[in-house]
């Protein structure tokens, strides 16, 4: 039978056993097969690109191969007339969370990152499936699995090499200053200029799980805040966020990531809260760099909701958006967007008012989810970064 063409849409059996619609992104010949035996790299159209994977022909339901007729449809939301393919592309873009990138850079970005190069990595206790492509040096193009040293983040192609490395590597925590310690949780600040190789390794690693991160420029203008859980084997990284040393757009966070094995445990929210605590100490208002991923946006909305609504519940008298901003270090636009999305800003009798009915606020707070691990500001020992002469 004929191999499928790139761009074909078909149903594919996913890990949950059910069939889902996919689009073929790439294909390659099987080493051990005939001239027509291929495996296919597919994108599940209902899901984010992180679930893209190489599949075998058996997983595909060939009866469902689409004969596509590109007819005109009307998009119900906007009322625009377009072809079915165009509409589908837009819908999928919204699923992905790519709204904030313009079409051209999105296309460009997708072009060269469309196929994951590394399939799994081993980092400390876990072997993790990767989510996205990461631009490792060309020497690593032939490799599907990488082995990372848990502490210095050196990556190697064979497990043996890692084991050998562990015998000589005496680093037991990130190579920076510990600036926060509460219980077993520690935060380290790493300067990209002083620890360039570590910074680069961290970026290579993080890119495997972040879609829109670019490693175009070098790490020396960044600070890396690495969150760790400590035990008798060392301080193990669970997540991190990076921050520009000098941001013109007052970004207080560039990239943020919780490693997959540690997600859904409150670390991500901790990182967000921590970034705002640093902003408060600096005396500056901050905001995360855009675009935010789908998961990232959810977390931030939750954080903003919790912080702002807690204040509104307790506050007596009037308050301005600017005051809220000064109290929380959250940028005024973000505050406004959050309150407006929750419909808490009304226009009455010629002026704006904030609705703070306790029942309403509690509804929203419940929907926003629990807070993550709390930041104990008394345990933060840190001064804002200063350039050394």
């Amino acid at each position: 039978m004929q191999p499928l063409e790139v761009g074909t849409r078909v149903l594919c059996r996913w890990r949950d056993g059910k069939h889902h619609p996919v689009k073929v992104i790439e294909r390659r010949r099987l080493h051990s097969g005939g001239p027509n035996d291929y495996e296919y790299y597919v994108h599940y159209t209902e899901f984010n690109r992180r679930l893209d994977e190489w599949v075998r022909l058996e997983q595909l339901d060939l009866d469902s191969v689409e004969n596509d007729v590109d007819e005109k449809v009307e998009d119900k939301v906007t009322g625009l007339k377009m072809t079915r393919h165009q509409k589908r592309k837009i819908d999928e873009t919204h699923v992905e969370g790519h709204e904030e990138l313009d079409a051209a850079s999105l296309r460009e970005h997708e072009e060269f990152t469309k196929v994951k190069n590394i399939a799994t990595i081993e980092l400390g206790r876990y072997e993790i499936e990767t989510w996205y492509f990461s631009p490792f040096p060309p020497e690593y193009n032939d490799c599907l699995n990488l082995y990372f040293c848990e502490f210095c983040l050196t990556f190697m192609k064979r497990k043996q090499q890692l084991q050998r490395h562990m015998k000589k590597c005496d680093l037991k925590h990130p190579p920076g200053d510990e600036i926060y310690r509460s219980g077993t949780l520690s935060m380290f600040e790493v300067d990209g200029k002083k620890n360039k190789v570590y910074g680069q390794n961290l970026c290579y690693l993080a890119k495997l799980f972040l879609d829109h991160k670019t490693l175009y420029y070098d790490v020396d203008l960044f600070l890396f805040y690495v969150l760790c859980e400590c035990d008798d084997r060392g301080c193990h990284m669970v997540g991190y966020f990076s921050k520009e040393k000098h941001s013109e757009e007052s970004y207080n966070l560039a990239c943020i990531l919780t490693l997959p094995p540690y997600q859904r445990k409150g670390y991500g929210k901790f990182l967000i809260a921590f970034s705002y605590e640093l902003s408060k100490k600096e005396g500056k208002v901050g905001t995360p760099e855009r675009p935010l991923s789908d998961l990232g946006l959810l977390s931030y909305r939750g954080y903003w909701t919790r912080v702002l609504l807690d204040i509104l519940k307790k506050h007596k008298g009037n308050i301005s958006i600017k005051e809220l901003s000064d109290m929380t270090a959250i940028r005024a636009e973000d505050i406004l967007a959050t309150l407006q999305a929750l419909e808490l800003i009304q226009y009455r009798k010629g002026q704006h008012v904030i609705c703070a009915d306790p029942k309403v606020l509690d509804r929203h707070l419940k929907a926003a989810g629990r807070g993550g691990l709390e930041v104990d500001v008394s345990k933060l020992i840190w001064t804002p970064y200063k350039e050394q002469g």
Partner: protein
Amino acid sequence: MSRLSFRPRPLDIHKKLPIVKSIKDFEDDDIPTSTRTQMLRFVAEADNDNQVHQVASKKTVSEIPIPEYVIVDTYERDYSPIFNQPASYLRARGARAELGDFVEYDLDNEDEDWLNEFNEERMVLPAEKLVLFVLQVLNISVVLEFEFYNWCRFESILFKLEVLDHKGRERAGIITPTLGSPVPVLLAFEPAVEALQALSIQYGIFQSIYSYWKEKRERWLKPILRHLQPPPPVNDTNPYNVFRPREKAHRLHTRRMQRRENNVQSFEKLRQVRRNLDQAKNLLEALIKREEIKRDVTESEVSLQRIQMKYKNETELLQDSLALPELPSFRSKFVSSEDEFIESDDFQHKRGRFQPRGSMNSRMVMTYSGGIMKRETRHQPVPFTWLHKLDPLEPVLAFTKPLVAEKLAAAGIVPPLDSSIRSSRGNSICGRIGRGGRIIFDRWNPLNAYTNRLWRFAVIYAS
């Protein structure tokens, strides 16, 4: 969604907004309840409802699937529990990888394979080969001490070769900031042998290792130790190349303190800056001096005028009493030392007079000390040629220059030849500058003792 008939004003973030604690307050207005209020009420009263906007439009976290992960079974063995967390917060040690003792290089697949082959060839005893073969077949990752030792040494040698080569290139000054052309291998065999003598490697083994390393370098066209690889150039557009250095302009933008480069260009620039500053300094000093001189001149003029005024008052009295106009009446009043006068005889002749006015070329300070005038001359004064032409007894009005007849004639100003004018003392020949800059030819001078009782008729010419 709202059906408000007017557009609300944009929100001012600095303005304090009232916080309304109860929705009932919304029902007090004249504006019919909008859909918004209804929505709020709906939200407050509803039970466990999923129609709150925020949740409906976004998937909850539990619905977003992610790829999977598993636990590594050899973890406990590979990572030993030897970490003792100190009570105080850990401090950074400084980057470990500053080409120190720590062997930063890790063998990659190529190196391992090569070493394996190399070891196999060297092994004489079939027993050793058999053991290795068995281990490989069983895929046991137990590392023999002997093997490990070899790997270790091999790694260490490769690392040191890289470092030596890098240092050699540094000394030769050919380290490039970005990856442009292929990075050459400078380290030759003999110097390498010498440098690594301390490791006491067998000559033959070292030879093999060296040629393996050199060949690999020539294939890679760049150092094999990542730390030493130069980054891609700034204008490289290949998206697979990463970690470019920032362009200078961007650096200025994002870093408050400029990184100062240490090269010839900046030295030249600084030297130029220094020259400019020196010149500016000299200019400013000259300027200051000039202004000081001007100030002194003005001061001396002022005192001059003051003295003239006083003198005038006294002159009237004396002129009345003296008959001979030619005598400088006040010579006795002046004490002047010989060595202070440096000028022409004429000047000395005139030293009784306060004639110099408005001259910029001298510095003469008159000091009044108990009735005795002392004139000090600090500089060479320019000869006061126009002084000669003055009538000593011509009454002097404050702040005016005497008029020069030839210049007046050249300008077409001719004194009136009125019969009523009495020609006395050159008044009718030279006029004077009167109020408002008018040129006045006096028929008689009221200040002159002789004409005290006569009327004055001034002839006014527009100047």
